[in-house]
């Protein structure tokens, strides 16, 4: 009994200590960062922007001494919800106008700072070494495939655009039993990369960074709502000026160049 109590106590103590040590660590880094720079800029950005933004971080901080950029990547809808609930954030970069409109309606962003900084296209992809029988969206039909991976249209922006595209081609209904609805665009890519889904529909920027897929076709622009990426300064941000500087940098030459490098338009 005594041994049992002792071991239980020591386990609890260990867990407690691990918890404490973590707390201390974050405290420390927090103070160190403050000494190093005056402003810590939190940028909440759509997950599809990850690679481009990570590359932009260095040059931006180089050009703007005293500003440290911290990214918070996630799906646009989720980010909007967390910002609405008071998560600290200075800049919001969304993958859909819809989420940004909602934020603007609720006066959570600075309306005059809002600007579209990138565009994207919808592409049909397949696994790199899959000998595809089709080469366009119109060729998709139940006879030529087992499964198509797409985003879930209710919650994932890329899924919404895909549904619009398929609807304008009268494909959604007939293909319904073949559509694997995924919880984000990365999952669509994984299904296609592993060869489990014959085809998938993702943004051209996603297809661009994956080495295991090839693009078969690009959706016509009038098949779906335009895919634009709006950015804005959060109304409650304590660093309005630095946030605006980041947006200006993103929409400037360097920003555009980097975004294009990663498949955006």
């Amino acid at each position, binding site marked *: 009994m005594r041994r049992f109590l002792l071991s239980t106590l020591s386990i609890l103590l260990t867990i407690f200590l691990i918890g404490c040590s973590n707390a201390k660590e974050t405290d420390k880094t927090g103070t160190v960062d403050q000494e190093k720079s005056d402003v810590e800029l939190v940028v909440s950005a759509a997950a599809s922007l990850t690679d481009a933004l990570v590359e932009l971080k260095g040059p931006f901080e180089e050009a703007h001494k005293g500003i440290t950029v911290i990214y918070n990547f996630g799906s646009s809808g989720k980010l909007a919800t967390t910002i609405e609930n008071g998560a600290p954030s200075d800049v919001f970069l969304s993958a859909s106008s819809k989420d940004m409109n909602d934020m603007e309606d609720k006066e959570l962003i600075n309306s005059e700072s809002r600007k579209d900084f990138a565009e994207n296209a919808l592409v049909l992809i397949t696994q790199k070494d899959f000998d595809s029988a089709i080469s366009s969206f119109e060729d998709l039909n139940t006879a030529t495939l*087992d*499964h198509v991976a797409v985003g879930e*249209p209710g919650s994932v922006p890329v899924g919404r655009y895909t549904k619009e595209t398929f609807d304008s081609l009268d494909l959604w209904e007939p293909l*319904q039993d*073949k559509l694997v*609805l*995924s919880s984000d665009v990365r999952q669509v890519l994984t299904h296609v990369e*592993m060869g489990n889904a014959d085809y998938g529909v993702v943004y051209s920027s996603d297809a661009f960074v994956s080495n295991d897929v090839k693009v078969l076709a690009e959706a016509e622009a009038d098949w779906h709502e335009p895919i634009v990426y709006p950015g804005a300064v959060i109304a409650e941000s304590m660093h309005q000026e630095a946030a605006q500087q980041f947006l200006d940098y993103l929409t400037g030459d360097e920003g555009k160049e980097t975004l294009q490098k990663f498949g955006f338009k």
Partner: protein
Amino acid sequence: MLDMDYSPLLLSLKVAAISTFVVFVAGVFIAYMLAKRDFFGKSIVEALFLLPLVLPPTVVGFGLLILFGKKGWIGSWLLEWFDFQIVFTWIGAVIASIVVSFPLMYQSAAAAFESLDERLSNAARTMGASEWRVFWFIVFPLAWPGLLAGLVLSFARGLGEFGATLMLAGYIPGRTDTIPMAIYFAVESGQMENATFWVVMISTFGFSLILWVNWWSKRNIRRFTKS
């Protein structure tokens, strides 16, 4: 009633029932085989059986994709020889449920068999009972309360399985949408009415199941102590 599709309920019950059956038979068999035996590496084998219990569902799902995917070790073989695809079908959901609920069944069964009084089985053996008879007439009835607990836990775990299922079975409405998936995507797309319906449904079901098992085992213990 809400205007909605009830297929997730039927599918969830089907998946959980089949997976529980497989898990029960396999769990009882393997646990019994290992229970009274000691061999080199037994703890390693047991740790492997219990691994899905502690791994994140995404890890289990990824592992299953590697095994059962179209290009996977087992998946490609099944596809080639039997033209049978597991990924993105309801069978995939069954396999995910089996893998995550097996540890629960194994653990309950192993505990039940370990605590049995070996002398009872030996007494039967001295009277000439075959191993088969000993198992069915002595071991199984005595271990039943523990086995039942494992059975119920496995069923509940199979019913609630989400992470690995989403990866292996995908989400194809009308085909592979179990209740947990219906809830997840309803919440994500803001259909709170739908989500609430399924949440109430699955919670009520789980609650009744626990109540029933508690009542049943108490009644059993009472009967046992009386005689």
